[in-house]
């Protein structure tokens, strides 16, 4: 992690609630201008971690520095962090303008200066002319923008977003993702983004941290998290995965992956007796005459692609095929050939049983 400048730096953060380690020895260096997302199932510690950074929760040990200043023991109002709450927490008895003005008034800024800054931030979030509305008169997306503007106007060094899009409908979620990216680029914002939606995290982040049981499972760029998950948890939580346990053997100069009736060529793999291959459903292809045969047991139509569940021996694998005008359609009960990729991603078998996902 040395290549990161540690504009916001978390070192060995610990937080325990009773017997539960909500945050377990977490260290991360975050760059200025970076958007990093915390993702994980409920109870993984992502919100606790965010609240610790914002100063709403005291950590048990460890330290936080922001822009070379230790901020551990500062109260929320004295940290230059800005929190956007999941439910926005807009003050319902104040107008949009008054909501945004609130923090500026506390800083005792001149009225003309306040007006200038509020107008500026309203235009940044594209809400010019909405100043006189009450929060209840705004749509969900607009409320979201006000909540962001209320933080931005104070020029925070880090913007903390707690599941900001979870109250919006699917279409609006997409738009707001773009919007947050745009603001980030334009204003060079450093943003921490908490979400439980893996697709959201993949599409919005510069880097993402996958958390489970208070531990970092993986910290990487989105494409690496998806293509090279470090363990079974990450493989299953981010995207869908076929995880097949088998062995990797070398014979006649070629390397094979072998599990029951499944045998296929692989490149660049070390021989191993218990190898776990992570194969994404879209990496597998179906054909009519391949050597590995299976029977289609279930078909789920998804619009742009179709997911087939194919039973091979004791394994059941998911296969996604893009629905083009020419792609073949199979029926339930069809016997088909299955073509595995020759570059599957291998993960180490975890020592303990993977926890049941609670998403």
């Amino acid at each position: 992690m040395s290549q990161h400048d540690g504009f916001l730096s978390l070192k060995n953060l610990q937080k325990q609630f009773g017997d539960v380690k909500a945050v377990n020895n977490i260290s991360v260096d975050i760059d200025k201008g970076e958007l990093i997302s915390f993702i994980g199932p409920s109870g993984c510690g992502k919100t606790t971690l965010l609240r610790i950074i914002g100063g709403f929760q005291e950590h048990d040990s460890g330290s936080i520095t922001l822009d070379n200043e230790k901020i551990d023991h500062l109260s929320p109002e004295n940290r230059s962090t800005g929190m956007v709450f999941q439910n926005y927490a807009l003050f319902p008895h104040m107008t949009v303008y008054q909501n945004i003005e609130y923090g500026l008034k506390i800083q005792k800024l001149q009225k003309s200066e306040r007006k200038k800054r509020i107008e500026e931030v309203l235009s940044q979030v594209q809400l010019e002319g909405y100043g006189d509305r009450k929060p209840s008169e705004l749509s969900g997306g607009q409320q979201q923008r006000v909540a962001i503007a209320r933080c931005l106007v104070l020029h925070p060094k880090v913007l903390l977003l707690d599941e900001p899009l979870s109250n919006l409908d699917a279409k609006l979620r997409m738009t707001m993702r773009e919007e947050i990216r745009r603001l980030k680029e334009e204003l060079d914002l450093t943003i921490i983004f908490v979400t439980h939606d893996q697709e959201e995290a993949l599409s919005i982040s510069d880097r993402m941290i996958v958390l489970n049981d208070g531990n970092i499972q993986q910290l990487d760029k989105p494409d690496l998290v998806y293509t090279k998950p470090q363990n079974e948890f990450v493989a299953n939580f981010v995207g869908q995965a076929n995880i097949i346990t088998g062995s990797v053997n070398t014979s006649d100069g070629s390397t094979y992956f072998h599990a029951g009736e499944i045998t296929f060529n692989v490149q660049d793999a070390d021989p191993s007796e218990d190898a776990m291959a992570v194969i994404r459903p879209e990496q597998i292809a179906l054909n009519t005459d391949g050597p590995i045969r299976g029977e289609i047991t279930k078909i789920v139509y998804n619009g742009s692609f179709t997911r087939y569940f194919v039973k091979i021996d004791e394994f059941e694998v998911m296969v996604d095929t893009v629905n083009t005008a020419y792609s073949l359609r199979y029926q339930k009960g069809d016997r088909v050939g299955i073509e595995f990729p020759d570059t599957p991603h291998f993960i180490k078998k975890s020592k303990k049983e993977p926890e049941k996902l609670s998403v």
Partner: protein
Amino acid sequence: MDTEISSPRQRGHPWFINLKKFWSEPGFAILTVILAVFILLFIVSPVFAVLLKSFGMGTGALTMDYYSEFFSTSFYLKSLLNSISAALISTGIVTFLSIAVSLYVTRSQSFVAKSYRGAALLPLVAPPFIFSLSLIILFGRNGIITQWLDGMFGLEFSIYGFWGVVISQVLGYFPIGYMLVESALRNMNPSLEHASGDLGANQWKTLGKITIPLAKSGIIKASLLVFVMALADFSNPLIIGGGKPFLASEAYLLVVGQQNMEQAAVLGVFLIIPSLIIFIFQTYFLKDTNTEMISGESGAANAPLTKSVKAVVVGISTLFTAFIILLFAMVVLGAFVKIIGINNTFTLEHFSNRNGWDSLYTSVIVSFISAILAAGIGILQGYLFARKTIPGKKVLEFLTLFGLAVPGTVMGIGYILIFNGPPLFLTGTVLLIVLNMTFRKIGVGLEASISKMHQIDTSMEEASNDLGGGPYKTFGKIIVPLLNPAFIAGFVYTFMTAMVSISSVIFLIAPGTNLAAVYILNLAEQAKIGMASAMSFILIVIVISCMGILKWIEKRTGVRI
């Protein structure tokens, strides 16, 4: 809650940590301590004083003499029996009527149903003995209907006595029961009834198997509250009881007539025991019934009532509300004619009553101040209790709400015992009346603001913190405006009840400073029906206009009341 805004890291015994946390915001801590002292002084100590007095405290050694006097005097025993049986009977009738009227009002959108609701709530704005007054006009010894019956059939009849008290209680306490039952029926998810109908049950069956069982906790709450109020009823027995002994009125007569504080205290203890039991039952055993389960967000409307159900509930509602309106009309008529039923010429002479107007003026001022205080203290306390770490919070909350449950008579006697000498010699002052009215009612503002606080997400305060507002700024700029509805709820309730309250303050008024409700009671006791009607009429008009002004403010400012 793990969302509490955390304060610096702490070590040590949890109790010590709590105490440290408590003092971390000294302003709020000091307010809490002051509040606690006031609650102990103005709610708890009077009750203890009555308890101790009943054992003869202050006149030598503690003794059971006054209790043995109670149990060996059939007059006192009868007062206990009368109070309990009247309260039981009126509670039963009120509960039954509440269900019927609520069913009609909640299951019908018609204008008629809405006006029934208005009529049903009318008794709230009148002194608690208003129905005694009009029942006497109609059925008293010289009542309009009594005279007519006598003339037509030679029937000798009069309403005075046990049943007169029961009827007055039913009418007077109906709104309390009705409001609770109505909200229980209204908050129920209509799809449950639809489902029952869909599964083949007719509406009677649905009522018996689904609706009423689901509203059970609301209905039980309503009946308990009505029972407590009817048991503590003071003015109806005095006016229409015809000399029959009841606990509260007898305690009053013992204090005023014989200065027998000890015996009065014993009667007070018998008033307070059932109230205390019911209060504890309600606080600790009834609250668990899950209302979340039965409330739904479904936008569906209730199914309209079927013919047979409708016939029954509309019949009952119509008869009952018509009776209420008839009785109110009697009071209005009585105010504007010379002697109602005997000399029905129009007159305004009952209104030219200097003392009456003075007492009305005093009542408005005193009630207004008490209402502001009660509502203000209530919301402050609600905020502190909902958000702050306060050692002994549960106990303080219990005691505050207990203030609502203590019968007025007991509170009145307790206040005389405590404040009739040093260190706080307040008897006869208006201040004491204000304190009495305020602290008996702060529980309403407290409950309203606690429930409002639960609706305000803590993130609202965290956001304010994050934007730079410290705890006091957050309280003033964010919490207080958001608690406005709770403030107004507390204000309205305290003002209305203070305007017509009587059982407690009757002990505290000094010669010269009369309150309207007490003054009207005196008039009624002296059979000055015309004047009593006129004063009641003005009192009702004042209370209704105040409500109207509030509604107007609500419309103007958009603050929901």
